[in-house]
């Protein structure tokens, strides 16, 4: 301590080293500048445009949430849409069909909900309570794929009844419970979480009634977790949308053919399109909030989505595109609703 009195603000500061000299003045100024810089940067963030191109035509926001199965389709459509309308902020989220309806769409927080099953009565009620009118449009066909480990050499095809005995509540514990000649080993089951449309669809198509899926399985919203689980165990079984099977074709998994009474049919775009791959060919939907169609960017995006649903964009992702006439029917219905809204 070299100084023995407090420095008056007007005094020149000649020395360093004591704990209240020019340093702390400089310091406080520096903190002030740093703080001001932060505020300034944040304020600037408000003015930073990312695209300088003059798209002009449309701006605003389209928010999408819902099914993880439809998620890749919506991302693909959003990406293509952006090429035409660079100033529209399209956000896509993967929350599961039920999560998307319950937490976002029927709360009026998103304009579009991806769905791998039709909307349920209680969800319609929730939407109605909040003044949201859901419009259903089918955008693709999926072949829900049941997979086993590639080294499960004893199984290639299963009947619907055998699948039911695996996935129903208190279902089979061991492979040998299904067919005596199969290994006397316990199943390791991976599947979709109960919030998922895939879960609902498999339950209805295979077991035959709602919410009657067995509970002792690994439930997840992450389809790749199922891929990893099945690839890692010889006695595992799982299921997910066809796109995830196509994408992981080098993983250690194989798809099971399904026998619905007319012989074994393997999941593929062709068999799903022809309706041969039953009962696991399923429609994929988007639900649009009718109220949001008063916004031009939402209107234009949905129109773009419906037009894309008949193109190779859908098959690139790993689903079956909609037939020409269905696309046209969807578009006609959409335009008549838009005419009402306006």
């Amino acid at each position, binding site marked *: 301590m070299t100084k023995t009195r407090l420095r008056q603000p007007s005094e020149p500061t000649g020395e360093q080293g004591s704990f*209240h000299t020019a340093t702390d003045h400089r310091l406080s100024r*520096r903190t002030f500048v740093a703080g001001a810089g*932060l505020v300034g*940067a944040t304020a600037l963030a408000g003015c930073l445009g990312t695209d300088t191109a003059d798209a002009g035509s449309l701006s605003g926001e389209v928010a999408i949430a819902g099914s993880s199965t439809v998620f*890749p389709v919506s991302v693909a459509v*959003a990406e293509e849409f952006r090429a035409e309308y660079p100033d529209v*902020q399209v956000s896509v989220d993967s929350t599961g069909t039920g999560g998307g309806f319950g*937490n976002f769409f029927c709360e009026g927080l998103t304009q579009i909900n991806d769905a791998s099953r039709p909307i349920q009565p209680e969800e319609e009620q929730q939407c109605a309570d909040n003044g949201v009118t859901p419009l259903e449009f089918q955008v693709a066909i999926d072949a829900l794929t049941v997979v086993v480990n590639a080294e499960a050499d004893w199984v290639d095809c299963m009947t619907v009844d055998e699948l039911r005995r695996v996935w129903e509540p208190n279902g089979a514990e061991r492979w040998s419970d299904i067919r005596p000649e199969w290994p006397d080993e316990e199943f390791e089951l991976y599947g979709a979480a109960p919030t998922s449309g895939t879960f609902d669809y498999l339950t209805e198509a295979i077991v035959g009634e709602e919410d009657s899926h067995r509970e002792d399985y690994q439930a997840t919203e992450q389809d790749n977790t199922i891929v990893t689980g099945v690839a890692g165990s010889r006695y595992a079984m799982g299921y997910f949308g066809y796109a995830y099977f196509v994408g992981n074709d080098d993983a250690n998994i194989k798809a099971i053919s399904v026998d619905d009474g007319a012989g074994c049919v393997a999941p593929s775009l062709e068999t799903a399109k022809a309706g041969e791959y039953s009962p696991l060919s399923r429609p994929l939907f988007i639900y649009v909030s009718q109220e949001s169609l008063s916004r031009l960017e939402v209107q234009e995006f949905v129109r773009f989505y419906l037009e894309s649903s008949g193109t190779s964009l859908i098959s690139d992702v790993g689903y079956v595109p909609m037939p020409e006439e269905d696309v046209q029917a969807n578009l006609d219905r959409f335009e008549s609703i838009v005419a009402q809204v306006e």
Partner: protein
Amino acid sequence: MATRTSPADETETGTGTVRSGADWQAGEHVRRWPGRLFAALTAGATALGLALLGVLLLLVTLDAFAVFRPEPAWLDFGFLTSAPSRFPDRAGIYPALLGSIYMALLLSVLTFPIGVGAAIYLEEYARESRLTRLIQLNIANLAGVPSVVYGILGLALFVRTLSLPNGSLLVGAATVGLLVLPIVVISAQEAIRAVPDSLRQASYGMGATRWQTVRRVVLPQAFPGILTGTILALGRAIGETAPLIMIGAPATLFLAPSGVLEKFSAMPRQIFAWSDAPQPEFQYGVVAAGVVVLVSVLLVMNATAIYLRYRTQR
């Protein structure tokens, strides 16, 4: 021999046996080896942590730059400047990168004054009472609340009650700000507590008021520590995913946010979405590139903290 472990034992024998040098050294040896063993164990623990981190970073970097693969590096300039895409080789992190940075900036503006203010009050002004002890206990407990709970709180408070747009930059920054606020308060308190009391007493002794003392003595001394705590809290904030899922910050969007009420995505959200993409290229390549960018941003932030600390301590 092994019983003779402390000098006190020797004096108690009292028979005056002269111990040979070798004997004495053996005793010393017996006395020292537990300390040496402990030092070796702690060094081993440190090395293990570092080695695991090193291996992780090395693997993810090799993946990000596709070192042992035929394809070009996943992490290049284009990755930083382009939007997400369904094609792995075109996918970029730009909107999420900017979203994360904006969120961190806005969050520091929101939490720094509140957190440091609370710490100054609790350390310098508040009297020790049942109330302050209760507050203290609560802050310490809040620091341990799981992040998803803060997400639900943010959803209820900012989106449902205050009707701010869900998934917006402001809601994200405020929610994650609540999450790191206890960390800011506690680290600032510790920095203020570390200022020797003699300095305060000297300041008072020279006739300074409490305000002058806090302003000119305590805060300058504590500032480096406060800054470090804040930046560490920011580091935690930038890696949070769960609260952002809860408030509806989307996984994937194509433009950086252009205002505080606009939707934003953050790097962990985008990386998580990529990890669940159907194509394997996303799962090993694009994810790795995203992780390297995220970790780099963290390192830059921590380096800034160290630099500022060095500057303010001189």
